[in-house]
């Protein structure tokens, strides 16, 4: 019956009532922290109908029961994917990098002795845009970059992405947010629409493979002062989110900062981090050690 409807063109026989929308909205808000405004109604309905059809259901009712009681959590993940934009590019969510150089780093170095290194973790690093963005931002905008040694580690579970990151070749789309002078300074145009990041930067990031939920793998990661964990945890189930957050907590120095994606919040993950509000952003902090 569903196949027939596709053949008929745009006729959509699945309707989302106001009560359906409320029910879905509340469920999605509880799971992700994202609350859909009434103004997003059309957008939500469309995406929902797509998923209903894609999973072979013929009504919101049966689809919702399916998602709600699905033990694998796969369809919820598909839903979250459908409602979030997960594209990576250079200087994505730049306000956090601004916060890093203006607020986080000054606080961190105020607690460091001269000669101590600063460690920054990009997890997931995907194809490298994020760790390279961090590196460029530090070199260009952090006034104290010459006074401190900074180690940047980029980790991901996907080895293909890591290979791409090491190669450092990016499309026009990926670099379009970069100011021209930065593009010219750190990239070489390869001629076919692709840009390669310079060798110096490629050699300055350590790329590693990791499963962030496995404490045995995360044990060897320690001493991080800043962690960028953006647009990863929102795709995990509740238990995995908690475990990942605990592993990251253990990998951080007391007083270290962690940044999540702009539509993510620790409120759906854990209360072990302190909440810090800066003018640029809300970030989370591992508490400083109390004297026992």
């Amino acid at each position, binding site marked *: 019956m569903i196949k027939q409807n596709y053949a008929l063109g745009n006729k959509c026989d699945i309707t989302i009532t106001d009560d359906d929308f409320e029910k879905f909205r509340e*469920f999605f808000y509880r799971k992700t922290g994202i609350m859909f405004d009434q103004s997003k109604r059309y957008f939500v309905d469309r995406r929902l109908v797509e998923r209903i059809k894609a999973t072979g259901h013929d009504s919101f009712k049966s689809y919702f029961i399916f998602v*709600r009681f699905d*033990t694998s959590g796969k369809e919820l993940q598909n839903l979250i994917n459908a409602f979030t934009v997960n594209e990576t590019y250079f200087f994505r969510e730049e306000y956090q990098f601004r916060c890093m150089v203006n607020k986080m780093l000054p606080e961190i170095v105020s607690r460091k002795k001269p000669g101590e290194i600063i460690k920054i973790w990009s997890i997931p690093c995907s194809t490298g845009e994020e760790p390279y963005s961090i590196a460029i931002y530090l070199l260009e905008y952090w006034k104290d970059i010459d006074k401190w040694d900074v*180690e*940047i580690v980029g980790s991901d579970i996907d080895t293909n992405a890591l290979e791409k990151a090491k190669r450092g070749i990016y499309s026009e789309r990926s670099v379009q947010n970069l100011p021209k002078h930065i593009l010219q300074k750190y990239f070489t145009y390869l001629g076919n629409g692709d840009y390669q990041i310079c060798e110096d930067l490629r050699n300055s990031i350590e790329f590693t493979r990791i499963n962030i939920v496995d404490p045995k793998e995360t044990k060897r990661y320690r001493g991080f002062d800043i962690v960028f964990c953006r647009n990863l945890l929102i795709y995990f189930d509740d*238990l995995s989110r908690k475990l990942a957050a605990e592993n990251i907590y253990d990998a951080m120095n007391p007083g270290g900062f962690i940044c999540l994606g702009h539509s993510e919040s620790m409120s759906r993950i854990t209360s072990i981090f302190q909440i810090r509000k800066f003018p640029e952003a809300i970030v989370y902090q591992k508490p400083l050690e109390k004297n*026992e």
Partner: protein
Amino acid sequence: MLIKKEEEKVKEIKEERRKIQRDFEGLITQLSSKNPMERRWAARDLADYKEASKHLVKQLMKEEDISVREVIISSLLRIKDEVAIKGLVECLRSDDAHLRNSAIEALKEIPEEVAPYIEKLLKDEEPDIRIFAINILESLKHPNVIKWLIEVLERDENVNVCATALDLLAEVGTEEAIPAIEKVREKFKDEPYIQFASDIALKRIKG
């Protein structure tokens, strides 16, 4: 300046870890260390030992550092034997609100293992425990969930217990719950909140 870590440093870290790591006995001792970080590591490593659950539960009951609490709970969820589950269920009765609520959340993560305890909890003499049991039901994919919620509406005399059941039925309720909802509306006809919650549940079920 940007620098890259050398391989030697990785070895250093491994050596340090081995010094701290011990066998089961050593970990149990470390679990009551004065240093919260050591307690965390011990609680983390004890997840591999089934025998650890009774020690973890004991420590959970007196642990004040929330980051250590969280790891103890994660470890209990990995072990998830009867001792671990009974321990978490006991935490529902704690005077510490944070511990109580962490236990509810934890039990939601192991719906299959907690299912055998739910029916009894739904009949507990403490109304708050009955409410927590319904909170835990939220994560259950058990075929009996709706039936249990209907029973609560029909049987429970406490207004807040019924209110909690109504809230869950608004999301997962089916048509078979409609008569029970209408009855509870009658039972608490002087409570504006129950009228409100019943209306919402009925609307959402009828769609």
